């Protein structure tokens, strides 16, 4: 069991490394755009009188490349630049290359520096994560709890189970951004209801406010985003758990429990639930990365300063260190989710605990 577990983690870690390397190499092929975007505007340079000649422009270009660390070769091997005489031929670049530097920095816990702001990527990711973790964490907890309650009720097939299931299936069909926009349309719209704000948390963080004021303000702003994320995660969890519960309720031991005279509620809670939980635990491993992806959409829709918007903005501005760091972090979240799921399934199923 332990060895299998370790092997699985190792394989996923390897996959995360391969994927991040792929994104790193692919993105840095496009280094020229990043250099262009990192430089001041051309028109602005003309007016200030700097870099008016071609030579001056080239100097500026080289300086920017050096600052971003793009002046050394990309990988261990590569072709010469197209301008040189032996263009198109492969040669060995040696250790001082961008990929090697990134990898060594990574092993020392350094993600690099952002192209745009010059801050360290690690601190920016941490800042964003401190915002996103409460958001996704609350949404995940709410979705799981609601799914547990709702699935137990639905499995008993009360009169209202058909419309609720229909609503859940319809909700499952909706992409998250449609849910988010719909919530905005109904609850944060001057033409309909103005119960919640549609943006404005960025300013609040800067403003001088006591903790007593800040907390209700924060909660007020977070209600709709959390609701959108919860609504997007809820249907799949609930429908899956309900189906598993219904299958367990058809088993022999459930019939025995009913024959003992137990109420249907008790049969579900004390007998069927634990057996039905196992497939849902596997879903939890998917839930964490899915919520991070959901955070991209929700944070853009509600203008929240978190991980998702950081990634979306980094993608728009070609801020590759931030982008690659984000991909790595999400891969790490995936590893964590796998670990958590395996531990939970150990708890839920004694058969897994006892097998060697």
């Amino acid at each position, binding site marked *: 069991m332990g060895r299998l577990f370790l092997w699985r983690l190792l394989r*996923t870690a*390897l*996959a*995360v490394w*391969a*994927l991040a390397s*792929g*994104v790193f190499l*692919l*993105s840095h*092929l496009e280094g020229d*755009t990043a250099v262009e975007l990192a430089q001041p505007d051309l028109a602005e340079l003309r007016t200030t009188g700097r870099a008016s000649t071609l030579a001056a422009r080239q100097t500026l270009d080289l300086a920017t490349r050096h600052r971003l660390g793009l002046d050394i070769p990309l990988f261990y091997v590569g*072709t010469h630049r197209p301008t040189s005489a032996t263009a198109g*031929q*492969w*040669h060995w670049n040696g250790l001082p290359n961008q990929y090697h530097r990134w990898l060594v920095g990574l092993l020392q816990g350094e993600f690099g520096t952002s192209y745009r702001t010059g801050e360290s990527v690690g601190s920016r990711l941490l800042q964003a994560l401190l915002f996103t973790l409460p958001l996704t964490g609350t949404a995940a907890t709410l979705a799981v709890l609601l799914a547990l309650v709702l699935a137990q009720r639905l499995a008993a097939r009360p009169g209202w189970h*058909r419309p609720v*299931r*229909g609503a859940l*299936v*319809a909700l*499952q*069909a909706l*992409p*998250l*951004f*449609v849910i988010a*926009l*719909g919530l905005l*349309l109904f609850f944060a*719209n*001057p*033409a309909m209801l103005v119960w919640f704000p*549609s943006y404005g948390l960025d300013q609040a963080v800067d403003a001088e406010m006591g903790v007593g004021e800040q907390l209700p303000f924060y909660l007020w702003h977070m209600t709709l985003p959390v609701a959108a994320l919860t609504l997007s995660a809820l249907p799949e969890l609930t*429908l*899956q758990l*309900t*189906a598993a519960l219904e*299958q367990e309720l*058809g088993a022999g031991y459930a019939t025995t429990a009913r024959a003992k005279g137990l109420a249907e509620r008790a049969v579900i809670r004390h007998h069927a639930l634990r057996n039905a939980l196992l497939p849902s635990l596997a879903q939890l491993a998917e839930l964490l*990365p*899915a919520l*991070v*992806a959901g955070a*991209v*959409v929700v944070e*853009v829709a509600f203008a929240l300063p978190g991980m998702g918007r950081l*990634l*979306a903005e*980094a*993608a*728009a501005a*070609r801020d*590759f260190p931030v*982008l690659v760091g*984000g*991909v790595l972090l*999400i*891969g790490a979240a*995936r590893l964590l989710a796998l670990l958590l799921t395996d531990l939970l399934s150990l708890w839920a199923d004694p058969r897994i605990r006892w097998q060697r």
Partner: protein
Amino acid sequence: MGRPSHPVAALASQSLFGPPKWAVAWLGLLVLVAVVAPVLPLPYPPHVPDLAHIAQAPLAPGQHWLGTDAQGRDVLTLLVFGTRTAVFLTLPAALLAAIIGALLGSAAGFWGNRARVDISYGAVVAGSVWWVLRLPAPWLGGVAGALGLVGVATGGIRRRKLAFRLPLDALVRGGATALDTVPRLVLVVALAASAGSISAPGLLVLLTVTSWATPARLVRAQMLRIRTLPFVEAAQAAGVPAWRIWLKHAIPHAIRPLYTLFPLSLARLLGLESTLSFLGIGLPPEVASWGRLMASYRQESSAWWLFAFPSTMLIITILSLQKLTNSRK
């Protein structure tokens, strides 16, 4: 057990959203609209803003049936051309992903890690790669390729058992795992940024590259079952070459699960495409898309029609696709 195994399948039998005929008719209509969109007699052409009527409600005096957006473009026209984008992007992407996935997955399942490849084929591939990449002394690649070709033609090397093992299964599974470690949306966003400003064919390639893993995994699992069946053994006994058994006999059975998966993967791609357009990352701004139309509602928060019409179309389409999936189970 009389209960269906999947929760959504349970609903399919309850005729909640009409019979599958209805779904098929809607999807057919969408494809038809997408194909004939350029010749449809629309009252307003695309890309031409009607500046006299900006952000007009539907059926207002401006003669726009479904209103206009914040830039004065006709919503009906945008919807029609958005349909064209959606159909011509998701349909080829899903098809290509299914084909690539089926080929890779079935090869991985059929040969496993024990595929023995004759060294002369290896020489041909290595030689041509050497030649194309222009590694030092390109003639070396040419010589290796020619030697390999001679070996393939004569079959002489094979008798001496010069072959290497290709860990096909490990390669395909590793690729699929690597793609799965990060959510698809994040991966597509990261790759779209590194590819620079992206065009419609570029997005098509990106969607295909990130979505072949699911069909590959399904087909691989099915192939593991198929290759032990008696008819495969019979073909081997009859002396049919392995690649022929794989292509002609095993694949038609192994791709069965894809018939069910296809509408579902279309629905997922549709959701992904509209989400990308909403984020403003996918297609260039002049290409009409449902997601972009919905996003434009945020600039004009009283214009409910910008959100209501495209989202209704999206929901009906995704539900029809789900319905199609369930009816095929």
